[in-house]
Every structure is written in C-alpha cells, then in structure tokens.
C-alpha cells in the first residue's frame, strides 16, 4: 500500500514509570503527568493541540466506561475532537497510527495520542481472566482461557517446527531485563542467567514467570504534527515514514496453513516446506511489516533498520517477531538471539528499553511508550530523559516500533526516521 497523505512527525513524548500498582494516582492524573512532560519538553500550550486519540484496552479493569473522555476533560482538551481506539494489546500501536492518520489526512496539524491502563484494581489472576475474555468466549475462553497458555502452545509449535530451545527464549529475557538496568522508567531491571529464567516458577510450559511480562498501571503520550508545525515546535522532530497493520483470525485454531507473504529480501524457495502461518508465526505481524516497509522504502530490513522496540509480552513472541519483521528468515529466530544480533551492541538492537518484559505492560500505554522511547533514541536525547546515555545508540537513523494484540490478531508496525 502506498501512503499518499501529508508527512507526519513526532515532536514530543512522555511516559510515567510503569508500576504494579499506583493507588495514589488515577488514570487521569497519570496521563496528565506524561502529557505535561511531553508538552513542557517543547513548550507547548493547550491551544497548540488540535485534537487527540485516547488509547486504552479494557473497560473491565477500570469499571468505568468512556474513560477516554475523562482524560480529555482532565487534560483540558475539551471541546476539541477526540476518539477512543481499542485493539487488545495493539491498542497503543493502533492509536499511534490513528494520530498519524489525523495528521496525514490534513484534518489536524497537531495531535496528542495518550494511552493508559490501570490494571491494579483487580488481582493478577482476575486480571488474567479479563485479558482472556479477549479470546473467543464460545470456544476458547471456557476451555481454560489464559493467554500465557495460548502463547505457550505457539512456543511449543515453534520449537517443534524450527528446533527453537527454551534456552534461546531465556536469552530474550536476559537481554531485555539487562537493557532495563539503564532505563529509569523500567520496572524490573535485572541481571539474569539462563538458569534463573528456567528455574523461576513455570506458568505454562515452556514459559516461566521470567518469560512473561507483568500487568501494570501506566500512561504514555506521543505528540504528532504536520511538517510545517513540527519544525516550528522543535529543531529535532522525527518523521514517521511508514505505518502498517495486519490482522488474523480470533481463534488460534482457525489459522490457515498456506504460503508466506514474502518480503523483498525473500524468495518463495526459502519456504518450500513451511505451512504458514499455522500457530508458529504471526501473519498479522508479517502483513504489518510488509505494508510499513513498502511505505518507508525498506527492502532489506536487517541492514536498513537501526533499532526495534517490539511487543515482547512473552520471550517466545519476541523470537517469533524477529522472523515476522524479516530481521531473519522464518525458523532462524532462535539462532538470531543466540548470535547476539538483537543485543544492544548487536546488528539491530531490539528492545533497548527493556521492552514490555522489563518495563511492564499497561496495555493501552505500551505501544505509545515504545514510540516515546524510539523518539528519544532517534533524537539522541536518551541522556536527557534517562539521565544516562548507556542506552543511546551511536548514530541511529531509522527505528521500528511494533505493537501486538491477542494471539496475533491485530499487529501494527510503524517506522520512524531522523529527517534527511
């Protein structure tokens, strides 16, 4: 798909430190803090914002319908245009792209995309129940609705199909928790060993506690603008050069066994005997990447992308996603982590921030948090915002953010670049 709209830039961002529970602040105040951080960073006032997009996943967690308008109201953005976007775990990525569309279409010159989730109002296992309601309630939920269980079955099949090992999965956890040590916004910075990961409590075989992200309270804000406005607001805006979205069947059981949609750097002969996507791969992720790459002019992802923030709700889904994004071929995800290619000093650092595994996953905020971290990375302002430049890459020009829902039902990929 060619995108023919106006150019879109990100001009500022803000994130609250995600936490297991923050009863001293409700969702409105949390968004306000992230919003003010973003606004103050580039000296914007409320008059400068044309409209907004609200990003949050579950009405169950909050037991408050229309929470979006309550945030709009609290921020002082009424009566400007706004809407709520929802798409499971990909809510943040979808909202970010909705903001992109508002600018690209010419409807707005500036758009605030704010995301939040308050998951601490219920206990962890009730929270898992709410999340599992995002699976078919006729056929899947009653059988034992548990997302870690669904991902575990995908991981088992990936291991069967490609020989991926639990040690390779553990290495994702080690990498992301270690990156988080230098990210003050992270929730669980840790130095881990393969043994630590494998010996932590088994949640659903083969995924242990340390293979899985944590539910959290949190908020994140991205402010997007048109070209003219962006350069008025800041000397260093970051261009969003391509967006892509893919979808797949709600039920894991319905995934077809067909052919791989090829990226420019792949050939049909690479996958002669692979039945795709089955349950080992995310067709929505591949579809999203394909669309975004076409828009951004990417033909050789591993050599043309400098950093990736992807949806690592599970270590296994990070490995699966390397392949969907074409950072390596299908089946090579395990080897990719073994070779250290996704490490901070590797070929293409993945989740330099620590990702969802170490930062937490307040659903509606997560996809926007990735955008904010990537924005700072490309702006080379990591030192300013993280109070340390250890996670600042040398000369990053192009970054990719990836948000993911359900068992791979909605997936978004957005490409961000330093303007030429």
């Amino acid at each position, binding site marked *: 798909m060619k995108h023919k709209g106006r150019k879109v830039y990100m001009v500022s961002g803000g994130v609250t430190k995600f936490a297991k529970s923050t*009863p*001293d602040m409700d969702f409105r105040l949390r968004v306000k803090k992230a919003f003010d951080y973003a606004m103050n960073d580039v000296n914007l006032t409320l008059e400068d914002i044309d409209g907004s997009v609200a990003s949050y996943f579950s009405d169950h967690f909050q*037991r408050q319908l229309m929470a979006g308008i309550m945030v709009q109201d609290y921020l002082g953005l009424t009566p400007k245009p706004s809407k709520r976007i929802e798409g499971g775990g990909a809510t943040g990525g979808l909202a970010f792209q909705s903001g992109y569309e508002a600018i690209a279409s010419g409807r707005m010159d500036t758009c605030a995309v704010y995301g939040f989730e308050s998951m601490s109002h219920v*206990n962890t*296992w*009730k929270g*898992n*129940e709410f*999340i*599992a309601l995002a699976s078919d*309630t*006729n*056929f*899947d939920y*009653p*059988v*034992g*609705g*548990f997302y*870690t*269980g*669904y991902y*575990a*079955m*995908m991981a*088992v*099949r990936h291991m*069967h199909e490609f020989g991926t090992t*639990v040690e390779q999965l553990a290495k994702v956890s080690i990498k992301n928790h270690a990156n988080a040590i230098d990210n003050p916004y992270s929730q669980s910075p840790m130095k881990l060993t393969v043994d630590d990961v*494998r*010996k932590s*409590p*088994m*949640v*659903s*075989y*083969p995924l*242990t506690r340390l293979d899985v992200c944590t539910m959290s309270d949190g908020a994140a804000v991205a402010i997007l603008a048109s070209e003219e406005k962006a350069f008025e607001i800041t000397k260093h805006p970051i261009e969003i050069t391509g967006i892509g979205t893919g979808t797949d*069947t709600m*039920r*894991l*059981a*319905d*995934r*077809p*066994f067909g052919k791989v949609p090829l990226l420019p750097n792949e050939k049909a002969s690479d996958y002669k005997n692979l039945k795709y996507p089955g*349950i080992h791969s995310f067709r929505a992720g591949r579809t999203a990447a394909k669309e975004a790459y076409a828009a951004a002019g990417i033909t050789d992802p591993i050599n043309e992308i400098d950093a990736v923030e992807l949806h690592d709700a599970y270590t296994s889904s990070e490995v699966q996603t390397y392949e969907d994004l074409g950072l390596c071929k299908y089946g090579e995800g395990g080897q990719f982590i073994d070779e250290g290619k996704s490490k901070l000093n590797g070929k293409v650092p993945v989740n330099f921030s620590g990702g969802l595994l170490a930062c937490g996953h307040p659903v509606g905020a997560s996809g926007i948090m990735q955008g904010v971290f990537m924005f700072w990375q490309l702006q080379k302002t990591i030192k300013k915002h993280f109070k340390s430049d250890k996670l600042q890459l040398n000369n990053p020009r192009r970054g990719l953010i990836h948000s993911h829902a359900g068992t791979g039902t909605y997936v978004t990929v957005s490409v961000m670049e330093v303007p030429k």
Partner: protein
Amino acid sequence: MTINPDAKMEESQNGTEIYSTDPLVVKSTYSIDYIHSYAQDSEFFRALGKKKLMGSRCKKCHYGYATPRSHCMMCGAETEWVELPTKGKIHSYTTCYFGSEVFLPQTPFNLVLVEFDGFDSLFMARLIGAEQEDMYVGMPIVAKFKRLQSFSPTDVYFVPAKGSEQPSSSNGKKKRR
C-alpha cells in the same frame, strides 16, 4: 407540593470494606448474569450431548473447519455442519500451572490444539490422562464426552489413545524444564 426542609436520606448499615485510608481504597463489587446465546454456533453445543463433535465444511471451496463457523473465511460462502472423527493428533500442547482466576482451582491442566484428518483447521480442548512430559506433537488422542452436559466446549475433552506413549528415543526431547 410537599416542601420538607427536614427531609433526611435513609441510612444503610451495610458499611464499606476499606483497604487503605490514604489514599482511600474501598472494595467495590460487580457481578452480572448474561443471557448468552450461542446463536449460529448452537448446534455444536447441542451435539456434544449426543457424543458428537461437530465441525463445518464450506459448501463452495470445501475448506474443513475443526472449530465450526457458519461462513467460510476463505471464500465467504456458507458452510454445512459435518461430524468430526473422534480420533485426532496433538498439533501443540501446554500445561498451565497458573491461570485465570476462575480456572485457578483446576491447575495444573493441559491445553491442546487438535488436528483431524481431512480437516484444515484445529480445535482447542483440555487433555487429561497425561502429564506435561507425556505429551508430544503428533500424539494420537481420542475425544471423550461428559455425561452431564454443561453446554460448554468443555463437554468434550481428550485422552491419550491406547499405546500412544512417546518412543523413549524420540529426538532426546525431554519435556521437563
């Protein structure tokens, strides 16, 4: 008109459970009974009572659904109900040691995705009669039906087929952590 400046709102002695006073955190409860219709999926649930596992097949392109749907995702045409074989194979599996709150008392439990000969898609179910390390991809399994129906997809579950033990030498893949 009855103006009463001394009107007083009725008080309740139910009280409120408080978790903390600063910030003030109180307990609030929410429960609902839904009138949930299985609608076009109804036949699947009724058939379980007759010990039949129903899938569907597209009338036009003949794509076979092990989890039924009334319209085909491949071509959009209507499907028809067809009975699935009771024997299948494990396509993938896991053992859940934790779970959603409602299922926590049932942990650990096994989830499997089942493949059936002649059908293109899979079916998700519980498997009993085997532990995590006993299960493997390709394991032959058999559907069993509960006698007392609860009109839930768990009215059907799977057990290992006789003689389905994994050959001990198989790839040295030991399934324990």
